[in-house]
């Protein structure tokens, strides 16, 4: 049946110099992608507004109530917690959208045709998103912390406390975003993945609040110690605030990093194995 083929011709060769693409190219590509959509601007913009707005508001309330001695010796920096928790929801959305928007539009097929290595694509996405989220969150957290300290006064914080309230909070939120990116790669659906993430963040703490039975005491304690908001607040504190004896200081970051690593590993595996 193949008799009708014309005689074999010279194969086409492109005049454009051939260069093997690498991770650096993928990083540049993902940076172009993330800065060329409005959702990035919106989610990060809303996050900055929320963090500074809520941070300033809580600082002014505290300053008005305890006008005498600030927070009465308590560290001021923990005031940043509420804003960061709210702002983290924006980063979660952005993290999910970074990958699910490609699935939603079908862009993922174009991307994986241009770069058949799934691992490279996911790594580039994770690195670019993580660095962006870390930078923006840390900068905003630092700004808010400075403003709050100026408004409230109170006990001076140590250098390490400052580091945790800025870089620590930034790392925590960026890790949470990375977790969302992993969940997004597994769920492949924007609304579904965002719902899952909101559930992961809020549900354990809410559930723990209603566990009043004695038999559930241990579960309740565990949830109070390890729910995402508890972990975040523990970043600021020298000891667990909501529950005694939980992880605090830098440990919550390690816990979250472990969970994120597991989910991301699953995402790598799924992306490699599944049909697009």
């Amino acid at each position, binding site marked *: *049946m*193949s008799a*009708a*083929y*014309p005689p*074999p*011709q*010279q*194969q*086409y*060769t*492109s*005049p*454009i110099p*051939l*260069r*093997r*693409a*690498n991770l650096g*190219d*993928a990083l*540049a*590509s*993902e940076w*172009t*992608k993330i800065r*060329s*959509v*409005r*959702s990035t601007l919106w989610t990060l913009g809303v996050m900055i507004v929320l963090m500074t707005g809520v941070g300033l508001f809580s600082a002014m309330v505290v300053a008005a109530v305890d006008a005498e001695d600030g927070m009465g010796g308590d560290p001021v920096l923990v005031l940043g917690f509420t804003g960061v928790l709210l702002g983290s929801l924006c980063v979660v959305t952005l993290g999910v959208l970074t990958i699910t*928007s*490609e699935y939603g*539009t*079908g*862009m993922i*097929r*174009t*991307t*994986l*045709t*241009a*770069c*058949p*290595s799934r691992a490279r*694509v996911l790594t580039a996405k994770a690195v670019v998103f993580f660095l962006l989220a870390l930078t923006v969150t840390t900068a905003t957290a630092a700004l808010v912390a400075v403003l709050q300290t100026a408004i409230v006064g109170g006990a001076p914080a140590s250098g390490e406390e400052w580091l945790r309230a800025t870089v620590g909070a930034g790392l925590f939120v960026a890790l949470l975003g990375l977790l969302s990116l992993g969940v997004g790669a597994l769920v492949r659906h924007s609304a579904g993945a965002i719902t899952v993430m909101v559930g992961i963040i809020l549900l354990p703490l809410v559930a723990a609040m209603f566990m009043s039975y004695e038999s559930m005491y241990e579960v309740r304690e565990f949830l109070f110690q390890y729910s995402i908001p508890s972990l975040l607040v523990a970043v600021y504190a020298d000891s667990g605030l909501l529950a005694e004896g939980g992880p605090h200081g830098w440990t919550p970051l390690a816990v979250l990093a472990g969970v994120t690593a597991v989910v991301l590993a699953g995402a790598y595996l799924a992306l490699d*194995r599944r*049909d*697009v």
Partner: protein
Amino acid sequence: MIEAVGLTKRYGAKTAVYNLSFQVRPGTVTGFLGPNGSGKSTTMRMILGLDRPTSGQVTIGGHPYRQLPNAPRQVGALLDAKAVHGGRSARSHLLSLAQLAGIPARRVDEVLGVVGLQSVAKKRSKGFSLGMGQRLGIAAALLGDPQVLLFDEPVNGLDPEGILWVRNLMKALAAEGRTVFVSSHLMSEMALTAEHLIVIGRGQLMADMSVKDFISANSADFARVRTPETEPAQREKLLSVLAEAGGQVLSEPDGALRVTGLPLPRISDLAHGADVRLWELSPHQASLEEAYMRLTQGAVDYRSTDDQKAGLMQQPPPGHLPPPQQPVIPEVPQQGWYAPPPPGQNPYADGPGRPPAAAPPAPGTPAQAPAAGPPLPQAPPPPQVQPAPQTPPQPAAAPADFRKNEDPR
């Protein structure tokens, strides 16, 4: 070169592609045809390593896609015109792909020029029409200046100028020695663009041959013979003479005869010998579309039925009889629901050579024959002087015309 060997893909219980083996060679445009749901896109995705074959394999230049060194520089693909983040500008979209593939950024502006999107390069692709989306997709495929190009339905949504452009582009790319693999269900377009065809139906290979071979293998050429309508005796006489000489004769609804198995000069001689005058003796060559329809008849998954509007229709006025039953002509599949064969491709398909519409024309389809007044369907065709066989046969309009009258209800 693309080579598939025993390619099979199952989604649960459904087998999308079964035991597909073919080769796509460089230097020609290879058309990839099949009815909706026949597995064209699945095959394309497997070629690109997006879907894993259940069994079998497909390679490009000897490598599976995911193991290709510099894949984007060797293979370019347009899978879906809307596979673009709508919030991103055309230029950013292409730039991100170029960066991912390690292609210099100035190439982006080049391909934007090639597809004619320079003026909207900064616009978000959300607002693009389908045709502009296709152009953007083609630009992405051309970005790496690759050796192998895959296009899934590239002319969908393009205007006539765009279709012509794509056709010439495909041919030019193939002429440069590239492998061009194009799927389409626009037969007329394929007839003009492709030289080689791979046809699948229900996920299985149905044909792998050149367009010319495909047409002659899957359609019977025939001669259309018309005797004077005023003298039915002559028709009977010719019928018996032709049957005697070994020709197969089928009657068309308008009284013309469709003769296979006899060359045209022989028919003329026979008629002359029997003293029968002929009003028409014309060769009919099937178009690619007819050949395709004939081949894939059994492999169509989604078949439309007549819209009966049962219960919604008024009773026809008394005396208004249904149209006479037309004899079924099995030789050539129904035509008229699809775009007519391209002009120039089949000089005999137009005018008298066109088979009459055996089915009601779908809404929006131009009627096959111009309505010549509303003659009562059961009335004998009004005797008309037909000076030359170039005029379309008028009585053929009767059934189509009748249904058309009913349509507005």
